[in-house]
């Protein structure tokens, strides 16, 4: 943690309110994000308990599994979830704009190669104009999305495999593939397809508690937005611990895990009543009897739905409140660039699904894994650079670390290179109070109309005065293009890090994976998970 954010935390403790860590919003927020608040059954891996999902804060859709250990009910839940999520995803797939692959907006350098000339050619392709954004309450929610995706994508529907012993409802495997894609994308630094509300808030505010406690959405919001006349610490403590007369937390955990006190005191008895009612219904023979029993079952089910809703609703509102607070910050200008990459990612997955490709494998092959790692490293470096350029407060941290400096130009001397066709190489004398850690001929960069311009460090003149030589972006002529050379008195932020990140060397094609790395991946489709005949997990 940098000293500047440490200070922000200490200030937050002193003032009783969270302090800003950013002056702009560093993540794109969609106009209509889809908020997904899931709950899971304690101790079970693939047994969701319920969820609130929707794009309208006033009208969440409640999905509940009355008996999470029942396969049919779980499948019904997943089908309903697919019904809630897939139309939202589908709505974005057909609204496209033309784009060029191999152009600048493509995340990976490269593009397609013409087989005859071996030259790179640009290809006209479709790019989705916008992408659906998914917001979960906390980081555990992102892991749960991945888990749901993994549990669904290998399932077979009756249509795909008539012999499947327990066929999944249609569209469930498709949802699994989408959730897997979103979960995987969330691992790319700076991506915004799937975000956790706590991560978003923690990026922009420093609370007066530790980062461990910041994972509690209620407590974190309490620091950022405490009630009237209350300190953040008090409000956070209330969110963490206060219980009602039944021993239930006023601010239930943001999930997917539930509070054990809720499980033991409320949910378990309700599920037991439901099980009994179901057994009784199964045993009932006469029509009249069965009607009465069905009534009991409905009552029991309704009670479970009500209970689960009490646990979901506070988190649902907290997520929307968090989004509201985040929207008050203006979006950083380079966040849109990262969102474009998210749109490419969404479009690419849409194309894979449309092309009928099999679901993502259980484990990536060597080339895919290396590619993912490399692209995440690039994304991380790019995110750090872009945030610093967008936000003076982030830049301040880099200045403190000697990785950037703010300077005033005191003198400009024109000079040219020694080559046959001399190019402009003006020398700038700049004054700075920062302490950049410059080596001889180190490169520094500034942003000129959104593009980086490079200069070379020449020498120190005096304490706080240094000489730089501009080396590019001044046009092809002997004299530099208008506005491309700073003037005396200009205040310029220089960075020691590059603004754009280049990807590493190209990796071999998947079919050419060397044997040292496991050889080319097998072509056989991944088999579905084995199912056990007993219904209970």
């Amino acid at each position, binding site marked *: 943690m940098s*000293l500047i954010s440490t200070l922000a935390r200490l200030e937050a403790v002193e003032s009783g309110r969270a302090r800003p860590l950013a002056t702009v919003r560093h993540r794109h927020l969609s106009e209509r994000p889809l908020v997904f608040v899931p709950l899971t059954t304690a101790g079970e891996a693939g047994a969701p308990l319920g969820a609130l999902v929707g794009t309208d804060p006033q009208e969440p859709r409640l999905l509940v599994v009355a008996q999470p250990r029942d396969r049919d009910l779980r499948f019904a839940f997943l089908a309903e979830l697919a019904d809630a999520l897939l139309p939202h995803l589908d709505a974005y797939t057909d609204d496209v704009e033309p784009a060029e692959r191999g152009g600048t907006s493509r995340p990976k350098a490269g593009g397609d190669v013409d087989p005859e000339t071996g030259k790179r050619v640009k290809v006209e392709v479709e790019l989705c104009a916008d992408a659906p954004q998914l917001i979960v309450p906390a980081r555990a929610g992102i892991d749960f999305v991945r888990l749901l995706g993994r549990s669904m994508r290998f399932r077979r529907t009756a249509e795909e495999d008539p012999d499947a012993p327990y066929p999944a409802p249609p569209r469930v495997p498709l949802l699994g593939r989408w959730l897997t894609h979103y979960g995987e994308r969330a691992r790319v630094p700076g991506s915004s397809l799937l975000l956790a509300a706590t991560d978003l808030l923690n990026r922009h505010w420093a609370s007066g508690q530790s980062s461990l406690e910041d994972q509690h959405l209620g407590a974190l919001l309490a620091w950022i937005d405490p009630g009237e006349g209350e300190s953040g610490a008090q409000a956070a403590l209330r969110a963490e611990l206060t219980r009602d007369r039944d021993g239930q937390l006023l601010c239930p955990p943001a999930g997917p895990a539930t*509070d054990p006190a809720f499980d033991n005191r409320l949910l378990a008895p309700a599920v037991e009543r439901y099980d009994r009612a179901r057994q009784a219904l199964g045993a009932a023979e006469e029509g009249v009897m069965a009607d009465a029993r069905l009534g009991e079952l409905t009552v029991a089910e309704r009670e479970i739905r009500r209970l689960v809703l009490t646990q979901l609703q506070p988190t649902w509102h907290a997520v929307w409140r968090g989004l509201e607070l985040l929207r008050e910050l203006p979006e950083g200008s380079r966040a849109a660039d990262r969102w474009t990459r998210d749109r490419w990612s969404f479009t690419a997955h849409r194309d894979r699904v449309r092309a009928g490709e099999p679901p993502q494998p259980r484990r990536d092959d060597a080339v895919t894994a290396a590619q993912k790692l490399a692209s995440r490293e690039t994304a991380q470096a790019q995110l750090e650079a872009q945030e610093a350029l967008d936000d003076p407060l982030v830049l301040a941290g880099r200045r403190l670390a000697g990785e950037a400096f703010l300077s005033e130009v005191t003198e400009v001397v024109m000079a040219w290179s020694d080559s046959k066709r001399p190019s402009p190489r003006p020398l700038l004398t700049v004054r700075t109070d920062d302490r950049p850690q410059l080596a001889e001929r180190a490169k520094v960069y500034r942003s000129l109309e959104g593009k980086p311009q490079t200069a070379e460090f020449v020498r120190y003149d005096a304490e706080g005065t240094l000489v730089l030589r501009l080396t590019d972006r001044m046009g092809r002529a002997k004299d530099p293009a208008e506005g491309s050379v700073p003037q005396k008195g200009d205040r310029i932020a220089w960075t020691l890090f590059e603004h754009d990140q280049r990807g590493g060397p190209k990796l071999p094609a998947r079919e050419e994976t060397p044997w040292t790395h496991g050889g080319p991946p097998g072509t056989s489709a991944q088999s579905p998970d084995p199912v056990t005949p007993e219904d209970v997990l």
Partner: protein
Amino acid sequence: MDKAALASALGSPAAFGQSQFAFMRGNAFEAKVKADGGTEMMRLLGVDAPAEVRVPDLSAAGPEGRAARTALALREATAAGVGDGAWTLLDHPLLALEVAGSPAYLEPDAVVVHPDGRWTVVEIKSFPMIDASADAAKVGAAARQAAVYVLALERVAALTDGAKVAHSVLLVCPKDFSNLPTGSVVDVRKQLSVTRRQLARLTRIEDIAAALPEGTTFDLERPAQELTAAVESVSAAYAPECLAACELAFHCRDRARESGAVEALGPGMRGELGGLTTIGDVLAAARGSAGDPNDPAVAALRRAAALRAEALEEAGCR
């Protein structure tokens, strides 16, 4: 001592507990793994058709009795293994380990005695192993727990001829999304050396008790103020990680916050703050109202504070 009750009496109750769903699931899974006289467990150990699996009865009166019974069973099992090539599965043995000068009793899920005299700790957990990998944090916790069992077993093995405790344990988890067990051998050598060092460094309970003022009691009937004073007399180093492990953590956090300790905000906080330990001191130094400007930590703080203020001002003006 009941720390949960003590925490409630102090006014900072902790929220710990296990959901009965998780509890039931854990028990059901453990029963499934241990079913069929240990055949399933043997399969997970990679032994398909063992000649003979003994499952001795370990019941006895009291913890001392059960621990002694376990030690005896271990000795017999080792002898039987060397003699007849038999495998032995000890279901919930009880082991004694001296912690800070007083005995603590430990109950591993199972210990398997190999025919060659090796003892392997088996830890059964109900978190899933999906595509052959499980949550790293949970595996780490399980490994630390198993390391303590290995240590306790080593005390017994030292007194048994031909016995050797394996330094890797068998972790058994449900496979993917099913209730079928799958196993993974986890090397716990690192956890072992850490636990050994920590146990050696622990202050003995008698020494802690001796340092307390005469008449200190944690009697819950006492008024809260007196109890608070009693708890205060035992020194505690609060860190945010305590919240996940200790019933008294909320109490200690209150204390740490009251005293303005920087550590209450996380372990990484102290690194750049030099000798400054309280929030007040740090902020005063950053604002230039206290502290020695020649101290590099103070100088860095002032620069950080100035840069931060400048950036916030700039953003505010836009």
